[in-house]
């Protein structure tokens, strides 16, 4: 008899909004577990003596610990167990790619479905947020040192939270008018409700963190000036950069958007509520989304909710190589997104007035693996075909934003322009300056940015503690 006998092979399913209804609204698709379901799922955990799952979590949440508390029905305690190392559990429970992190390493997963760690995390976080009573974290006595955090996305928020708890006076500088970074402008409401993001940011900001919005660092103040003006250290977590385009004819036609613009208009500016909100968006009945990542899935599903009748997702490789989460691909499929694999656009054709009319693609075949390990797509001769569309959304990634790297002295960058920072500490080539998240790695995940923020906070603490000692 093995340890997992008697444990249901399948995880407890999570209910979702009905497909027909959900494509017409921006409400959250996944509805979360009930208390009963959570306890049932938590009981599937083997409570391994040497849990592998924890090592798969970039912020090392005590996973068996919080799951055990759920089985005991003590959801609040379970929440605070997570919060010992993760300040954003309601967010992570929703958007972390658990299947490639903690759940991938779950021992149960070898023979059965792994424990639904993400869904359980979400459940306890929602339970406490609904009650509206997150206890303030313990804060060390103030040490009088000041740290500036550039960017209020997952990396910046985590660094700020950790440092504030250690007794630092933390100021976050956000370029937009609202804090949250990609959590607010990028990830759609139907996947991550903005009220939840706000609640978690509030719970972190209560530790005396000063949040300064509308501050574009590199423009209004440079990183050098922050250091000159009394900040003892700076963390750069300014995030993803310039949207990448395909550089094909017709890309500047009216009706062609970068995914960044399309999502920012919809999520941050609430264009889906136009004209109640002032910012408009032009999303037609037939939409083509280019790319195979989560941002492409978000864009395609947003297009449906903005009223599209037909949404095509065009990806140059096959489904196996898609970088998007399986869950998101499935959601998109359920909602009726039409996937066109092994195809890449070669030009966009406009009408007489310069609006998108047709997109011309070429079929691809997969050749030998490239540097990323994925098979390289190669165009097939004379395989061109066209699709009639009114809107094209380009979701093929981003390049680095030059505003901070180009205005900071002594900051080394790699060939692609990203800031070079130690993976273990976030330390850059400039003394007192640390960096983490997408500005270092290029587009990655919320949780990996949080992991980088965690490491940088520890390194900043060590750097400033040394300074204090020297100062004495």
């Amino acid at each position, binding site marked *: 008899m093995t340890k997992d006998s008697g444990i249901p092979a399948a995880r407890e399913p999570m209910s979702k909004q009905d497909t027909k209804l959900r494509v017409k609204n921006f409400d959250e698709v996944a509805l979360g577990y009930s208390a009963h379901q959570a306890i049932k799922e938590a009981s599937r955990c083997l409570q391994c003596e040497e849990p592998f799952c924890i090592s798969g979590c970039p912020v090392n949440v005590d996973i068996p610990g919080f799951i055990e508390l759920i089985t005991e029905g003590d959801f609040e305690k379970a929440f605070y167990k997570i919060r010992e190392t993760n300040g954003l559990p309601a967010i992570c429970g929703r958007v972390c790619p658990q299947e490639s992190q903690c759940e991938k390493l779950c021992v149960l997963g070898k023979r059965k479905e792994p424990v639904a760690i993400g869904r359980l995390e979400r459940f306890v976080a929602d339970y406490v947020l609904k009650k509206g009573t997150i206890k303030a974290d313990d804060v060390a006595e103030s040490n009088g040192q000041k740290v500036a955090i550039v960017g209020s996305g997952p990396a910046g928020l985590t660094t700020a939270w950790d440092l504030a708890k250690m007794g630092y006076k933390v100021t976050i500088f956000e*370029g937009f008018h609202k804090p949250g970074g990609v959590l607010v402008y990028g990830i759609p409401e139907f996947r991550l409700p903005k009220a939840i993001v706000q609640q978690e940011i509030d719970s972190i900001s209560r530790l005396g963190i000063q949040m300064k919005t509308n501050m*574009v660092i590199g*423009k209004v103040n440079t990183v050098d000036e922050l250091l000159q003006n009394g900040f003892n250290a700076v963390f750069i977590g300014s995030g993803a950069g310039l949207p990448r385009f395909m550089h094909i004819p017709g890309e500047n036609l009216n009706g062609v958007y970068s995914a*960044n613009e399309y999502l920012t208009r919809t999520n941050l*500016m*609430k264009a889906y509520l136009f*004209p109640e909100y002032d*910012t408009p968006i032009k999303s037609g009945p037939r939409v083509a989304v280019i790319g195979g990542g989560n941002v492409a899935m978000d864009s395609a599903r947003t297009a449906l909710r903005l009223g599209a009748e037909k949404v095509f997702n065009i990806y140059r490789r096959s489904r196996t190589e898609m970088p998007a989460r399986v869950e998101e691909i499935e959601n998109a499929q359920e909602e009726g997104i039409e996937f066109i694999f092994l195809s890449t656009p070669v030009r966009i054709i406009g009408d007489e007035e*310069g609006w998108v009319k047709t997109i011309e693609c070429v079929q691809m075949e997969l050749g030998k693996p490239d540097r990323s390990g994925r098979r390289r797509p190669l165009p097939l001769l004379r395989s061109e075909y066209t699709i009639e569309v009114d809107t094209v959304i380009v979701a093929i990634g981003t390049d680095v934003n030059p505003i901070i790297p180009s205005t900071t002295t002594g900051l080394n960058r790699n060939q692609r322009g990203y800031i070079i920072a130690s993976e273990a500490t976030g330390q850059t080539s400039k003394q007192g300056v640390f960096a983490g998240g997408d500005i270092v790695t290029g587009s990655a995940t919320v949780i990996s940015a949080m992991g980088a923020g965690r490491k940088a906070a520890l390194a900043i603490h060590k750097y400033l503690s040394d300074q204090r000692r020297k100062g004495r």
Partner: protein
Amino acid sequence: MAYISEKRELTPEIKQLVLSAPEIAQKVKPGQFVIVRCGEKGERIPLTVVEQDEEKGTLSIILQEVGNSTKKLGSLEKGEEITDIAGPLGNPSEVRNFGTVVCIGGGVGTAMVYPVAKALKGAGNRLVSIVGAKNRQLLILEEQMRKISDRLLVTTDDGSCGTHGFVTDALEKLIADGLNIDRVVAVGPVAMMSAVCRITEKQDIQTIVSLNPIMVDGTGMCGACRVTVAGETKFACIDGPEFDGHQVDFEELLRRQRMYLEEEKIALEKQNSE
């Protein structure tokens, strides 16, 4: 938040607001812009900074009420607050002694040309300016431009002020009269900038234009403001807003500026019904 410390009505449709924004006022240089937002449901609007007072910590912006958002902004009074202001954005204008420069402002574009012209004059250039508008009512900053220019020409489309005609007529006359021009800076409606560039290209006079495509974030993140310059896609917010006018695809710019005309109408109707 930015407090409105002064409001001037330059014409019934064009307003000048002086805002308290000390951090931006310290930093802003001629040619740069800010993004403002009115109210929690407001959109982000890029606007030129016309002047700043570092000591008082204020800066002044000029706006023409054309759509829903600019009307809202224009309806704010002294003492009220603008919800958000971010900047300075974009690159500063290149300011040095070129020799003789002609600065051309069309309509509300004069608001962008004025600080650049002033800085160019300060750098030792001989400054000839041309300001134009549809009619006398829409002409702005005439006196300020006169004060800083060695020579000022005024044109109106209907002849109600200055010379009857376009700014391009005045420019052609300067060229015909034999003025040796080292650089032209032109800011105004797309059609005007394009017409200026057609003239100066023939004469091989370097011409700088400041572009105002639709923007959202203004920091390079969204790419709404992409323009084609010398056959390459550029982002006006971080690569501009000033570009070599002879290389700009004005037709594309004009087309992209009109992307939301329908929505603009809907928003205005909604505002009028409220």
